């Protein structure tokens, strides 16, 4: 996603025109045109296909977040977590359509505040049935589908951090604002051709635009919500182990798989040999970073604590993925391993750090998405000569600050109006009971030994 929508269109249109020129005689022979048209058609189809495959893989990440978080909360909050995750995805799907897409992609003259705030004017208009022209380079609907999934991912990140104490509807209302306005506005700064794009900020698939943004929104929520009852008792951190580590593991594998679509699809094109090769390169780097993140977390927890911590390994793999997301194309594989490994290390050190700051992040989403996201974005210039450390820092800071502050405002308004935190007795009995009225595992005997 290094290019924004209109740039891409232009680039492809240019390629379509340019390509035949190279190997041909100079006159505009109809046959030449036919060959060029066939190539352009193939490119259109392949680009569209990349969006569709990438899109369904990223959609699958919503299931990954749901399983990861269902596995990492206590059993009395599992049904609530499932409810939040399926509904947040649904709401993101609606909001991005109703307003988000056009805010994110204002085009050249759709800005309310030029390069800062896109137009809230309208819904996303699909092309007509059978429509689409080779000049577009790809089906706009496929791009919408793909972009929607990124928007939903941002919301999924928040869900885990604020788990086990947030009320359902306030959370969903926050998601509506996040996916309809906050995410699309900051994303427009880069992918919509706004001021960060103009400045040369580089965030290939969204280490910052998606992950650190989601993490910032989560941090704002965690601060306003406060920690779960009993989490920080008498100055000590009380572990509250998740109900099902195999579900958490499944969720991580799903996310890992989905990430090939997330990063690979962000190449935005595979209609040429170069693009297809680059998508492949991205797949390899993405996998390497995840692997290195997992290994780093395993080794580090073994060294620090004497035992491998599975939840840290899962977080480590995800942190590796987040880290490489800002630039999954340029680095050689060994560098991707290194970038991912640092992500894993970040997680192992910042999970307890957050605890010591009394920020209660139930699933480790802030270390994984915010901290590793910042790391991944800042390190882009190491492999990508077009990026500068200063601009990367500005962009990262701007987006995190914007999302954090706006989220704080929304969470704050919700807190003082309808309230965001469940009543103490509901939290103690579990949100499943209070908010959903059903248990996730109604038949199993449970003895939650929080201590």
């Amino acid at each position, binding site marked *: 996603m290094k290019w924004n929508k209109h740039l891409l269109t232009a680039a492809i249109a240019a390629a379509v025109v340019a390509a035949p020129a190279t190997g041909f005689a100079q006159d505009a022979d109809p046959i030449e045109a036919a060959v060029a048209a066939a190539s352009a058609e193939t490119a259109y189809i392949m680009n569209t296909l990349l969006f569709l495959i990438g899109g369904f893989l990223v959609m699958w990440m919503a299931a990954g977040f749901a399983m990861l978080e269902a596995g990492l909360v206590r059993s009395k909050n599992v049904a609530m977590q499932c409810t939040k995750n399926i509904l947040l995805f649904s709401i993101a799907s609606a909001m991005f359509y109703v307003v988000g897409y056009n805010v994110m992609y204002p085009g050249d003259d759709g800005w309310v505040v030029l390069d800062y705030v896109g137009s809230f004017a309208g819904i996303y208009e699909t092309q007509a049935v059978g429509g689409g022209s080779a000049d577009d380079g790809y089906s706009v609907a496929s791009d919408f589908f793909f972009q929607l999934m990124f928007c939903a991912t941002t919301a999924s990140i928040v869900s885990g951090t604020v788990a086990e104490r947030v009320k359902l509807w306030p959370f969903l209302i926050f998601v509506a604002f996040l996916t309809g306005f906050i995410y699309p506005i900051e994303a427009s700064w880069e992918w919509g051709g706004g001021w960060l794009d103009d400045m040369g900020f580089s965030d290939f698939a969204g280490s910052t635009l998606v992950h650190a943004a989601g993490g910032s929104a989560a941090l704002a929520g965690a601060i306003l919500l406060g920690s779960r009852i009993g989490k920080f008792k008498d100055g000590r951190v009380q572990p509250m182990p998740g109900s099902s580590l195999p579900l958490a593991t499944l969720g991580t594998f799903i996310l890992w798989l989905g990430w090939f679509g997330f990063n690979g699809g962000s190449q935005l094109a595979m209609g040429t040999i170069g693009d297809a090769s680059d998508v492949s390169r991205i797949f390899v780097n993405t996998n390497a970073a995840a692997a290195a993140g997992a290994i780093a977390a395993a080794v580090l927890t073994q060294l620090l604590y004497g035992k491998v911590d599975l939840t840290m390994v899962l977080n480590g793999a995800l942190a590796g993925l987040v880290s490489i997301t800002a630039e999954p194309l340029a680095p050689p594989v060994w560098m991707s391993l290194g970038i991912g490994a640092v992500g894993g290390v970040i997680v192992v050190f910042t999970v307890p750090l957050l605890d010591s700051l009394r920020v209660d992040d139930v699933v480790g989403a802030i270390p994984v998405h915010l901290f590793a996201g910042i790391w991944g974005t800042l390190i882009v210039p190491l492999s990508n000569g077009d990026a500068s450390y200063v601009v990367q820092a500005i962009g990262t800071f701007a987006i995190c600050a914007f999302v954090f502050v706006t989220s704080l405002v929304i969470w704050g308004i919700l807190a003082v109006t309808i309230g965001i935190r469940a009543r103490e007795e509901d939290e103690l009995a579990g949100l499943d009971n209070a908010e959903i*009225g059903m248990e996730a595992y109604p038949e199993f*005997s449970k003895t939650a030994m929080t201590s």
Partner: protein
Amino acid sequence: MKLVIAVVKPFKLDEVREALTAIGVQGLMVSEVKGYGRQSGHTEIYRGAEYVVNFVPKIKLELVIPDAQVEQVVDTIGKTARTGKIGDGKIFVANVEQAVRVRTDERDEDAL
């Protein structure tokens, strides 16, 4: 020796255990039970069908203590587990004739 059986609200477990430790109790057993009582009987709706919730999850504590400690233990559990709301639970006391520590074969009060 006496066997104290206490049924309490799940989230009170930790507090009760700590309070018991504080007064010198050295061992106990914990398990989940489904409790039926006055607290039961509210209705929930599941897939559109209303039904009565008869059972509420509770934690059962079982501990064997010397006769001399009974009053203190019962009081401690009672005070700690009390929220004043319906469903706080019960404490029962029964007589125990023998106790054995498996590891050492110690008997009776030495075994506790």
